[in-house]
């Protein structure tokens, strides 16, 4: 007798996303839809895609009337450990910088940039994202949820292909692995200040979608 899969089994397996570093899986991204809807009222919105580069995503956004800048994000290395003692020589650390002007973008697509940023450089990286953001600009970031182990793992950075305004797929960008960290939600919220966090949407695959809005400066 043939085994017949029950309908609820199908429902339970079909929608489940694959492993983060596996093959492409199309998932919904309501925060992206929200962000695109929000900037749609602006004339020629400027979008910064921190990559890794996905040509179709850049073209998808540009095709909708936005000017899309693509910036290859290179995660900064962790800060060197402090050596106690008077004879310890200071170590020069290269400051993380996004090569774009200040107050330029309506939307910064950070994707998984923060996950590949060590905790001691998180404030610096997010600070650069905030710098390039205009008033009422938005930052969209995706991050692995902090439940369970906080141990960093080696993972291939993901490239995000936007297939619809509320749907995207993650594909491994190349074969080179990098250290992937886990940040607590409160740490992310802290570094995002003074931006207003519009929402943190937790996906079934434990990916957090974080959307933050740059508030207009208060006039005195």
């Amino acid at each position, binding site marked *: 007798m043939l085994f017949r899969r029950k309908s609820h089994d199908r429902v339970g397996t079909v929608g489940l996303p694959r492993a983060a570093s596996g093959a492409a899986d199309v998932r919904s991204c309501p925060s992206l839809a929200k962000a695109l809807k929000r900037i*749609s009222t602006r*004339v020629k919105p400027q979008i910064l895609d921190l990559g890794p580069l996905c*040509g*179709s995503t850049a073209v998808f956004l540009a095709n909708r009337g*936005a000017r*899309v*800048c693509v910036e290859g994000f290179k995660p900064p290395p962790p800060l060197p450990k402090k050596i106690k003692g008077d004879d310890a020589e200071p170590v020069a650390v290269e400051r993380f910088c996004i090569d774009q002007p200040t107050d330029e973008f309506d939307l910064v697509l950070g994707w998984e940039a923060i996950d590949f940023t060590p905790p001691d450089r998180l404030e610096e990286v997010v600070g650069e994202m905030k710098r390039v953001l205009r008033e009422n600009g938005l930052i969209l970031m995706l991050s692995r949820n902090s439940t369970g182990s906080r141990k960093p793992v080696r993972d291939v950075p993901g490239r995000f292909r936007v297939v619809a305004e509320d749907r995207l797929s993650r594909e491994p960008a190349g074969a080179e692995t990098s250290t992937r960290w886990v940040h607590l939600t409160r740490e992310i919220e802290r570094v995002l200040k003074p931006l207003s966090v519009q929402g943190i949407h937790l996906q079934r695959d434990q990916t957090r979608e974080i959307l933050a809005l740059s508030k207009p400066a208060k006039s005195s």
Partner: protein
Amino acid sequence: MAWMRQKSETEGTANERPATATPPNKPAATSGRETRMEKLVNIGQSVQIKGELTGNEDLTIEGVVDGKILVKDHSLTIGANGRISAEVHAKTVVIVGTINGNITADDKVEIAPSGTVNGDIRAPRVSISDGAKFKGSIDMDRKGAAAQPSTSASPSVSKGSGLSTPRTEMPRSASSSGN
């Protein structure tokens, strides 16, 4: 591939030309040389150009160009060995090699998987293949669409709306137009 097809099209037209362009009283050897010259409408790998390069026919660059390239109404192909540090303006630009500079195309810009672009792209249609390297901005200029007389059939864009419904269908494959 588009750039390969383009080359073969160029060759095809070049083969057809001598029959009409070459005067019948010319010796056969001269006619053959002309045919060969028309076939090879390109800048070779060992050629280096500094300054402004203008043309009125399709062009393939395999060498090094530093300055400005203007081939309006024609296509420009940067071959795998081409290294360009220039402002580029053409009808169609296909990049298999490297460009450092801004690109303006009246029709399409296509970056092949081995292509590298450091600069801003301004074109109504852009295609970036997976594996291509690009740093800069994309502005899909709608100058061509705006020049056409507006008809009731065309989708209207609300006033002040930046992000609008695309004119073309969203491509699914990496190699298709607008990827």
